[in-house]
């Protein structure tokens, strides 16, 4: 039970960090793509 609870908490935090990184990645990728391709001339 303890292990399961601990696992669940760990999984929750890992998942939350992963999702936050995904959001940051989309943000950076968008700006980065347009910066490199054409925009910031």
């Amino acid at each position, binding site marked *: 039970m*303890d292990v399961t609870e601990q696992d669940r908490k760990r999984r*929750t935090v890992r998942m939350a960090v992963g*999702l936050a990184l995904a*959001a940051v990645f989309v943000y950076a990728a*968008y700006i980065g793509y*347009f910066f490199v391709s054409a*925009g910031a001339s």
Partner: protein
Amino acid sequence: MSTQVATHDHDDHGPEKGIKRWIFATNHKDIGTMYLLFSLAMFMIGGFMAMIIRAELFQPGLQFIDPGFYNSMVTMHALIMVFGAVMPATVGLANWMIPMMIGAPDMALPRMNNWSFWLLPVAFTILISTLFMPGGAPAAGWTMYPPIVLQTGPAFPFMVLAVHVMGVSSIMGSINIIVTVLNMRTPGMTMLKMPLFVWTWLITAYLLILAIPVLAGAVTMLLTDHYAATSFFNAAGGGDPVMFQHIFWFFGHPEVYIMILPAFGIVSEIIPTFARKKLFGYSSMVYATASIAFLSFIVWAHHMFTVGMPLAGELFFMFSTMMIAVPTGVKVFNWVATMWKGSMTFETPMLFALAFVFLFTIGGFSGLMLAITPVDFQYHDTYFVVAHFHYVLVPGAVFAIMAGVYYWLPKWTGHKLNETTGKWHFWVATISINVTFFPQHFLGLAGMPRRIPDYATQFTDFNVMSSIGAFVFGLSNLMFIYNIWANARGGEKATDRVWDGAHGLEWTLSSPAPYHSFETPPDMVDDETEWESSRFAESS
């Protein structure tokens, strides 16, 4: 550590006393309540701006406000209603109901939940404060198209900051919902046994995480164009203003579904309760929701057919947009099929849900009309578009939220709903909303442009009608506030199940729901068995 947490007994303490209960809130019900009250406040502020717009449009010519302020009102009304009223309302309902529906004690990340709420008042204080800045509030529309948005005065960076802060709030809220749904369901509640409201919110949360950073990226690029001499959207520097429209709508169209998918979930909870029948085609509802979410990312350019694009592009976006009608049609069909031969009663939440089905479908049909590229060339930027999206968002999303509030209010307060005042609110709101927005279809077809404070005299009659409808609808919301206030103050005691056709874990809790719900995971009642036993109970 984990043992301590798992066995920690909450009976010894209730909520904090006074203001600290709200500032440091980590309880999902408290945070849900704050989200809902915040959303209601924003709804009234955004609604007041709509009244200013409709007062100005009551007659041709300029009446009360100058065109610049009119543009600010249109812009602020939209930003406040989309990001301040509709989205926080559905997040509030999610906060209140998702843990109770899946048998969890709270949201998975309660402290982050507190942060995601409290960022909202910060964001909207910044946004609303721009009204008092030199040069006025942003006035380029909620779409913030360059180059016109770059003409905004000192309010510009504040608008960008506000959008970022509300975006961070939404992403944090979404992360919380995803990890709660995926990790905290009671044993036995498999994904395909989750209530539809939970499913629609899970999918919405993924949409938010993918879409909001795109908006943030777009406004960041606007900011650097303005202050850092970049030319992302500046044609003179080699950039392209149309590119902003593509990026904005790549966010903007999923945003539409971010507002409407939770509404689908609410209606999918209410209709089975008052039809006393299991939801027809549960799994097809889930797949339809997922299909809509996927399609929402490949239709964005239908908002900008008139910028000029290759024929192949026009055809692609026209057909992909029309494809959305298929999963949406599945949903409408399933709601109707749920009611078919049901033992229906028409309490206030059901009336709002029924109005949603009818009136959202009208908005859906006008959306199909707008999807036809050559036809859109005539409708674009006219009041037809205004009529379309208001049908989808007001008797669509807003009515579903009101239905949800009336449906779950007795569970929150422990008091039965006053059906008389509830029905008064329903009928006044439903009639007035149609008087407001239906004539706008005709205005648009006749060529009246949107976002202009003056109009040709032949448009007067329909505008008068629309303004009168809007004033009545505005006032009808005072009845909504009264109903909530009166229910919170007292009334006949509600039973645990509240509505006799209600099913699901949330109805096994006492009314009002205890401050800490489901300290230990409840037994998962198989939906099939529950519906069968209730049918048996009814017939015996």
